[in-house]
């Protein structure tokens, strides 16, 4: 990627890293997306939306490739179809509880649709690859602005609904009894999630976007129990893995998406090892709940 080499002099390295415009764009867009995904991801974990989020990323792929077929910008298609699906999921949410197979069927349709557009879209090779695996080092100034504006609006919305959303996610019945508009909050959150999926797809691609949305939040959840600390830690982890991944991709000849997803996974596994050790050392084996927390 670069003609310069890693010097281990942090100032020099940083200057090299931001010397090129494409790297500045990547760091900026990646950073914004990471902050949004880190924050949004906490509620993906809390509300048990892993599979729904994964399905949204595939919906995003179908939307983006469909938009290209009819001559629109991929980001527009991504955003429109994920937002539409967010509304559908919001309407179905209560019936979807634990019914993975319904989400699975939506995913089946989505995969077919994505493939259909891909087939119509003859000059598919590079663009489809970029959509599936991300093309953060090829982001133009306009893409950065789109990601930034979308992410800022979504973050503002998340801040606005934070308290009722947290309440509804922790105890839906109690929240409803206290007059929280549970359905509206859930749908608003899913729309924010749609924007986060769009941003993450721009950075690491549709197939890998889930990494930024789940792994940092799941890692942070293992390390703290206080909601605000959890959220901030998740944002920090997402930002750290994204920027480290980008820096590694700058000096190493491998894709940034690979580094970002691997770092996310490794951080999670490390957190699990550490916390498992902690539990083991503090509790007698008999008292240890058999890993039922996740299950």
């Amino acid at each position: 990627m670069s003609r310069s080499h890693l010097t281990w002099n942090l100032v020099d390295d940083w200057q090299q890293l931001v010397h090129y415009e494409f790297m500045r764009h990547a760091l900026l867009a990646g950073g914004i997306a990471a902050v949004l995904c880190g924050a949004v991801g906490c509620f993906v974990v809390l509300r048990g939306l892993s599979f729904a989020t994964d399905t949204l990323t595939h919906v995003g792929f179908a939307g983006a490739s469909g938009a290209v077929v009819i001559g629109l910008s991929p980001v527009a298609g991504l955003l429109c179809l994920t937002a539409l699906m967010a509304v559908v999921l919001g309407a179905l949410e209560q019936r979807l509880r634990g019914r993975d197979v319904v989400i699975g069927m939506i995913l089946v349709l989505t995969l077919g649709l994505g493939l259909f557009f891909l087939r119509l879209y003859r000059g598919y090779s590079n663009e489809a690859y970029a959509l599936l695996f991300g093309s953060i080092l090829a982001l133009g100034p306009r893409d950065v602005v789109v990601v930034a504006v979308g992410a800022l609006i979504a973050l503002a919305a998340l801040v606005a609904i934070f308290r009722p959303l947290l309440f509804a996610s922790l105890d839906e019945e109690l929240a409803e009894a206290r007059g929280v508009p549970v359905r509206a909050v859930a749908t608003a959150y899913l729309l924010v999630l749609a924007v986060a999926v769009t941003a993450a797809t721009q950075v690491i691609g549709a197939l890998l976007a889930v990494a930024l949305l789940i792994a940092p939040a799941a890692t942070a959840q293992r390390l703290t129990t206080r909601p605000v600390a959890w959220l901030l830690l998740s944002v920090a982890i997402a930002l750290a893995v994204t920027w480290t991944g980008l820096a590694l991709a700058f000096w190493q000849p491998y894709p940034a998406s690979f580094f970002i997803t691997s770092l996310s996974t490794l951080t999670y596994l490390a957190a699990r090892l550490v916390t498992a050790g902690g539990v083991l050392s503090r509790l007698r084996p008999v008292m240890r709940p058999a890993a039922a927390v996740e299950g």
Partner: protein
Amino acid sequence: MRLIAGTLTDVPFSWNPVDDLSQLFTYQFMRSAYLAGTATAIVAGVVGYFVVLRGLSFAGHSLSLMGFAGATGARVAGVDPLAGLLLVDGAGALLIGALARRPRGRDVVVGIVLTGTLGLGLLFLRLSRAGEALPVLVGDVLGISATEVTIVEAAAAVIVVLVAVAFRPLLLSSVDEEVAEARGVPTRAMSLLLLLILAATTAVATPVVGVLLTFSLLVAPAATASLISGRPPLAVGLSIALGVLYTWIGLGVSYWVDMPPSVFVTGMAFVVYVGTRAAGTPALRRGAAAPRPATVSSDFVG
């Protein structure tokens, strides 16, 4: 490769069934595609029943996508794709099984293992510098060899026999884990066995139908079958029948229409599922009487 080529035949569809069928089976590649596709649909229908029953859709989706890393990794190592697929899917299944007791869609572990593996797949793709991502994702059912057909058929037979042997304990531990445990069924082992069977199924199916369609054949026919009948043997039979039917029609249509079979299979599967739900089947009306996915019990968080 179907993504680049045009339609497979110059002979137009005649609406005369005898002519059309003989036209369809003129070429060896279509006969191979039908044999391998049928074997895949049968094994996916059987295993898919348990995927739906246990709420393993997300795990099934993840394991089939992980096949991407298996296929590209095998390319880098210079081994047979099937070996890479079996290795990566098997390791993924063990990791998911070790980290999550019942890996449902709400579980973060599945998503994390999935993206970690896919990231590796991307690395392998870059390292192998050979070819594209899409054939692996889409599959190449029309380009498989006679040897591959034999391998798929043999593997499918082994998996179906394995499920048949373990059918009762698998069923019991899927429907009611506590009762199964009380009756001495090793539920943890059954859960892991099912994940490994799922891994083997996706590993076998992926080179034939691609990672995207593998998932569809696993979930869609079984989901529809479970709506129609609550009786396990009947539901498994229906699931197989639907999967085979979708595959046959999908392959046939793609012979005349310039589209991969996966597009037709997924479209048909979705329409039939939605239609069945809308029609309101006896199993749906009876509700709790039939063995349904015991997914509600895990809903303590949300």
